């Protein structure tokens, strides 16, 4: 497991206290994540996985953004994994980068993993997963709408919650309410 170095403001991926003995569930999850890492790297090269760890008790793998769609497709299709069901897709603004996380479930093996990737905040862009999982279509639109991540190859990338004239991305940490003051006749209402 590679321990990441994040800025102090951003939450650490895993509460690993030096004094307390490591939680056996976390150790097991991390071991599983490393196994999957080896399997991914055998297929997609050494740079495909940037980090492994555990999100509480679930194995976590962070993937290089340019390999995002390939690796997720591999996880879905490969006989060893078969992670074929997306439970959750969420984006988080970490002040320095935007992190996209999906929770994958394998119907066949009854196992869960967390797969993540990162993209810079300005010109945030990632390959879309909609061709792989049609069920993330709206989730990606929501991430685009509220966090401003552009998804390459998405069939229908429009705002979903806000209307098209909305300025800014509400879930970003530097979003200001004053960008969208309602006006009447050119004057703020």
């Amino acid at each position: 497991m590679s321990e990441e170095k994040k800025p102090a403001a951003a939450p650490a991926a895993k509460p690993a206290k030096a004094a307390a003995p490591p939680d056996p569930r976390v150790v097991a999850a991390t071991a599983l994540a490393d196994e999957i890492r080896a399997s991914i790297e055998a297929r997609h090269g050494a740079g495909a996985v940037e980090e492994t760890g555990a999100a509480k008790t679930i194995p976590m793998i962070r993937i290089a953004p340019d390999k995002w769609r390939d690796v997720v497709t591999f996880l879905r299709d490969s006989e060893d994994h078969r992670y074929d069901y997306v439970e959750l897709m969420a984006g988080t603004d970490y002040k320095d980068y935007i992190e996209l996380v999906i929770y994958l479930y394998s119907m066949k093996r009854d196992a869960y993993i967390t797969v993540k990737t990162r993209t810079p905040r300005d010109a945030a862009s990632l390959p879309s997963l909609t061709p792989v999982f049609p069920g993330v279509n709206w989730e990606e639109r929501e991430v685009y709408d509220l966090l401003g991540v552009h998804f390459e190859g998405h069939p229908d990338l429009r705002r979903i919650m806000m209307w098209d004239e909305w300025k800014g991305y509400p879930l970003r940490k530097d979003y200001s309410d004053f960008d969208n003051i309602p006006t009447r006749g050119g004057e703020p209402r």
Partner: protein
Amino acid sequence: METLHSEEMILNIGPQHPSTHGVFRLVVTIDGEQIVAADPVVGYLHRGTEKLAESLQYTQIIPYTDRLDYVAAMLNNYALVHTVEYAMDLEIPERAEYLRVIVMELNRVASHLLFVGAYLLDLGAMSPFLYVFQEREMIVQLFNEICGARLTYNYMRVGGVKWDAPPGWLAKVRDFLPHMREKLKMYDALISGNEIFLSRVRGMGVITQEEAVAYSLSGINLRSTGLRFDLRKKRPYGIYDKFAFDVVVGQNGDCFDRYWCHFLEMEQSLNIVEQALESIPDGPVLGKVPKLIRIPAGEYYTSIEGARGELGVYIVSDGKDKPYRMKLRRPSFVNLQILSKLLIGQNMANMIAILGAVDIVLGEVDA
């Protein structure tokens, strides 16, 4: 016979339409009576719950979750407090767990009853809607007695529940169960055999297993295709591993199966309530919880089997008393995506039948 093509027309349904169950807009392109394309437009009820949560303490978020899926608010309450408890590794008093299960399963019954009534109303049958409200009213009154509200319960707390059951409440629930079972038989006689209803829903809006998994469907939409996927069994949270109940599955994945699964699931929920009432222990209802709830830094996701599917809460914490980011996995929002696929090639008259069976609550879709 060769199909006659005419000029395509765009028809706008909603946002204010009685059959869209809230403010939901559907832009359909029709060729004669056939639907060529459908584009659901959501967001009319978007309140930014996830953004609001970032400036609220965990206890303060609970009332906001009531407003998501407002017909099954107990389950929403639980989804949030469950994630917080999972993150903090909290011990919950046993009586609180039992009370939670009782109110959650009763809420599931109330929600499914409303589905049955509203779905039949969509299909043009007026009276089942009025009938189911009688039983729903009884459940809502029970909730009113235990937590003081009929719809926005705000009942769960991190570490337990707000109030113990008032004196005589558990006996009232016990009396309600046989009554409800009786009524379910009555509804069955009223609706399930009706030939008009059957011919409108049988074989309509079929979802295959592969589609259901690819579209991340959950809840009854997934189970109606025959997949035995119920989080209460797959990943038992709380004390659900103590109860014996069946996971209801369909066979064909059509609208009738979805309706029928709702029906059968109510019976299973009543069974769970009955078992919980038999073995509910005495004791405190709120565990030892710090006054200011802080989650250790990290990210946490847990999900429960909501009334409409997998209801999950994802929390990123930076160790403060407020979440750094909270994401709600709303089953209605995810399930609704398949609608544009299901509608293609259907007749216009089947549109409402298919939309109704997907079972959405717009408060949850828009969050």
